[in-house]
């Protein structure tokens, strides 16, 4: 009887430990303004000198439903021949990070669907392989090269730990 109980307890503890380890998410800070993340990100973007911030109409029309995000920063290439672009959103009590991520994914799909394939062909992989990442309350989408994305992700993770 004792042996049976001890076997059961060990199994439950083992299982619980594994489940907890598997389900525990990395915690991130939620007190970093987006404007403090921008100088961390942009030195790592190859064509950062072509980036500019469009007005809020761009967010309003292309990211519908993000009105309740506590902060938004969208940086897009406005010169040269690069497609480089990234956007940062910060969730709020009214709009969670998961919802924001879904909206960002929808935006990237729209961009892909609207791609005419007539210009900047060498840049298309950035759009095709664009990614959305969540860091706690922060959501980041990237239309960047693979190398730039990897460096930006690492830098943002480090900044928000």
């Amino acid at each position, binding site marked *: 009887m004792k*042996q049976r109980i001890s076997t059961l307890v060990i199994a439950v503890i083992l299982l619980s430990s594994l489940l907890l380890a598997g389900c525990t998410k990395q915690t991130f800070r939620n007190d970093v303004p987006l404007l403090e993340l921008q100088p961390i990100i942009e030195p790592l973007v190859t064509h950062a000198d072509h980036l500019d911030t469009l007005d809020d109409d761009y967010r309003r029309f292309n990211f519908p439903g993000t009105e309740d995000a506590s902060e938004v920063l969208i940086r897009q290439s406005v010169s040269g021949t690069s497609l480089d672009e990234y956007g940062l959103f910060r969730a709020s009590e009214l709009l969670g990070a998961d919802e924001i991520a879904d909206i960002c994914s929808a935006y990237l799909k729209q961009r892909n669907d609207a791609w005419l*394939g007539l210009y900047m062909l060498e840049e298309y992989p950035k759009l095709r392989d664009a990614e959305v990442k969540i860091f706690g309350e922060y959501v980041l989408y990237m239309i960047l090269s693979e190398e730039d994305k990897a460096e930006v992700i690492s830098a943002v993770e480090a900044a928000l730990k």
Partner: protein
Amino acid sequence: MKDNEYFDQSLFNKLVCAAAAVALICVIIFVIVGAVSDGSGKPEETGDDFETYVFPDADEPVSLPVETTAEPVETTAAPETTVAPDQSAAETTAPAEADSGLTALPASSAILTETPDLGQTYIDSIIFLGDSTTYGMSAYGVLTGGKETKQVWTPQNGTLTLDQAVKKKIVFPNTGLEITPAEAAEQALPEYLVITLGVNGISFMNEEQFITEYTKLVKSIQTASPNTRIILQSIFPVGSNYKNLNAINNEAITRANTWVLKVAENCGVKYLDTISVLLDSDGWLYSNYQNGDGMHFNAEGYKAVLNYIRTHGYTD
């Protein structure tokens, strides 16, 4: 010990351990596959194939979809435009009227009506701002200065979408620098500015977004150069051989041109309905006006455009 009281404790222990092991394995697999959600998502690959097409003597290659199932263009060819820079427009043969059933424009005082031919001098006083459908005017050398013309304002990457138009930089031909359209207007103070924009956005923009963004662009130029006479040219049509008709087609284009007219009315500028002489009877871009991709014009097509511009002058 009675048979019905018999209990194999070792078997029970084995079963518990086996269940725990199975559960352990399931959890490990679950974690590896991606129990932690990070919101990553990649758009589906379109799977399109592309090859590069180069405008005649253009500096930058322009990539086009591979025409793996090219269909013969059976639309009516427009009569050749015979207007040379010093010839009168009266010598040209008017193209057949289109009866495509596409959206007709409402009557408006903003629409530029037919005038006597204002000639090459008028054309020489115009700056053309737009996307790749405007860039071709320099590539084909149809303006004074040929391929070195100073009259074409387009971005370096050859494309311009309305939702970026205010901040997107064009290559200012006077200096070679990249500046915004408003900055260019402030420097050049053009007498006339013909804007041809919208085709890159109609696949995803609704009317509100289209009008909002176009209006912002026009107002930014008006602020920078108040005396410039701004003309919003209709979006050009596409041919039946255009590869992305599901995204951009003449029904959407003619609908968007009603929005362009609204912008012209709201901003107090003029609208030029050039599309009216570019459509064949089936509602497609004349086959002999395009370069083969169904969207971009050749020299013949641009001559038709210029002919229309100089015979529908902004004379108020």
